[in-house]
């Protein structure tokens, strides 16, 4: 990275931007890695308290350019914009502050001329029900990316069932956070494939509406706002709402249950309480055509134990950019259908964007691809 005055010159001033990705750092360790990279190796790394004094003051802005290539030869140019939401301010108490940050990040994307913007991680959760709060968009469209996230969760469940020799059709599926955009999309795709579906969320009216829609497909299901109210034990679990720990699941799921952590931030990990459970991080995909960062933030912004793995929500914008389909594919809360999931899955696959290798906080669940080790530099 060129840190001289000429550093300004080495980057194109107004490149054509196909897509923008809006994200933020999931942990102070991740934030420290980003700041450390920007400071360069010749300056001392900052202490955690120094990072905490700096990061919350940084206005949302582009951090780097991201170029992606399709396996069919197509290419798309993008930028990564960080909203700089502090990792310890993801609670609902900060929701207005965080929406304001995402709005400003969105304004950066519009100003940069991005044709499509994917809202990553928590940004997607904040905006899925608040699209009207985005700034005036001109020729820029926004997608939450949730449809491709759902596609990868569904694919991963099917893959792990196959790997484990489980019969999906005889399984009981529990979805925590079932009425959210991702949770309801998963319910529509998977509930018709299992023996029984258990839907859990905080809002009983939304649960009732979701259940009514699924009952039309003759799905056997129960719904409850309290996990303890379910009589059946789940052997496949999708946590589409972030759980602080697996403890609410204990006693409600089979000891060897397949558990997909599809919440944000991802914080379920194999524990002594559930030693036999197969826990994995859901919603992640992998670009096989190639992805480059300028400056080279590879392994810093995408902190996964496998190369070119990215959250599905961000990959959706990349896939649509490679397809030259600049449309708000995923918008609002709750409209994700199996038909739309199939559609985005096909678009992604056409460009070599597939389900990523399955892993959790302890490491890979399968090692069919060479694992590059945990790439991030500090925790």
């Amino acid at each position, binding site marked *: 990275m060129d*840190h001289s005055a000429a550093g*300004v010159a080495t980057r194109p*001033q107004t490149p054509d931007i196909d897509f923008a990705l809006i994200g933020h750092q999931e942990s102070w360790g991740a934030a420290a890695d980003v700041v450390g990279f920007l400071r*360069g190796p010749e300056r001392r790394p900052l202490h955690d308290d120094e990072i905490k004094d*700096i990061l919350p003051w*940084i206005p949302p*802005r*582009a951090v*780097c350019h991201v170029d992606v290539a399709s396996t069919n030869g197509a290419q798309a140019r993008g930028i990564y914009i960080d909203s700089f939401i502090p990792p310890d301010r993801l609670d609902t108490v900060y929701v207005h502050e965080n929406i304001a940050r995402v709005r400003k990040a969105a304004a950066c994307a519009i100003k940069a001329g991005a044709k499509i913007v994917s809202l990553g991680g928590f940004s997607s959760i904040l905006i899925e029900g608040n699209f009207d709060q985005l700034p005036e968009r001109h020729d820029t469209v926004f997608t939450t990316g949730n449809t491709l996230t759902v596609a990868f969760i569904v694919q991963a469940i099917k893959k792990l069932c196959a790997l484990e020799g489980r019969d999906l059709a005889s399984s009981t599926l529990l979805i925590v956070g079932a009425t959210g955009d991702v949770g309801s999309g998963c319910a529509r795709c998977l509930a018709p494939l299992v023996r029984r579906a258990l839907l859990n969320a905080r809002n009983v009216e939304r649960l009732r509406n979701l259940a009514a829609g699924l009952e039309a497909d003759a799905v056997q299901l129960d719904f409850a706002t309290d996990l303890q109210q379910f009589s059946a034990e789940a052997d496949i679990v999708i946590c589409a709402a972030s759980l602080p720990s697996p403890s609410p699941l204990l006693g409600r799921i089979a000891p060897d249950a397949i558990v997909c952590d599809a919440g944000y931030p991802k914080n379920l990990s194999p524990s002594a309480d559930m030693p036999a459970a197969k826990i994995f991080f859901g919603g992640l995909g992998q670009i096989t055509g190639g992805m480059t960062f300028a400056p080279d933030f590879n392994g810093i912004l995408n902190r996964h134990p496998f190369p070119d793995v990215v959250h599905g929500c961000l990959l959706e914008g990349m896939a649509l950019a490679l397809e030259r389909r600049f449309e708000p594919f995923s918008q609002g809360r709750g409209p994700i259908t199996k038909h739309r999931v199939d559609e985005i899955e096909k678009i992604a696959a056409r460009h070599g964007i597939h389900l990523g290798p399955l892993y959790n906080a302890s490491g890979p669940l399968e090692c069919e691809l060479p694992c590059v080790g945990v790439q991030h530099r500090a925790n």
Partner: protein
Amino acid sequence: MEPLIDVNASPIECTSLSPNAPIWQDILAQAVTGELLAAMNYASLSEICDDPAEVADALEHAQGERGHAAAFAAEGRKIGVDVANNVGAKHWKRLREAFLRCIAQRDFIACLIVQEIMLESFAVASYSRVGKVAPGTLGKTFARIAAEEEDHVDHAMSILTAERARDQQRFDDKVYCLHLDVMTTLAQMLAKECKDGHCEVCHATCVKPSLFDVSLSAAELRGASLQQYLKTLDMLGIPGEVTLSWITQLPV
């Protein structure tokens, strides 16, 4: 330390003396020093202006900054403290020297960048913060002067934006060179602790650890100042990813 300029001239009756008065005294001393330095900078700028209107403008700004210094000094008297000033204090001296280098090169644009983009960002952000927590007229004075300083920035922005449009590359390189010089010094001033000794403006020990007593912190003033600086650079059109690396490389 000897004040270089007497801004404590007119007598004002002291209306209160709070336990936090020594903290406000040091905050005011930094503000008065900054305003006097700005007045000196504008006076110097008037000497390199060719256009009589620009000369008048610079002198008017210099007068305005002296007025701000006097207003801050008056606020000090109201709370029963003498507000010192020291434009020769080590950090302020370096800032003045950086500005004088631009004057020596008769570089009007560089002068505006240093004064309006860098020093005023610091002033607008820190005065605004102080204005929110300082009691009574002290707070109102800080808030009023923050707003006036912001008007200065707006005036300069139109000149600087036009200049950048002429040659973005050259302009951005110039800003970066000045950033390394001026913002490094400002960042050291705004560091959480004064690691390289007394700042030569505070009347006793460093005021920074006491800022919590008046609902401020050095980190907050630093963060707000750099945020304001980044926003100003954004308005100029310098790419955000470039300015992000600039500010993360500053001393902490």
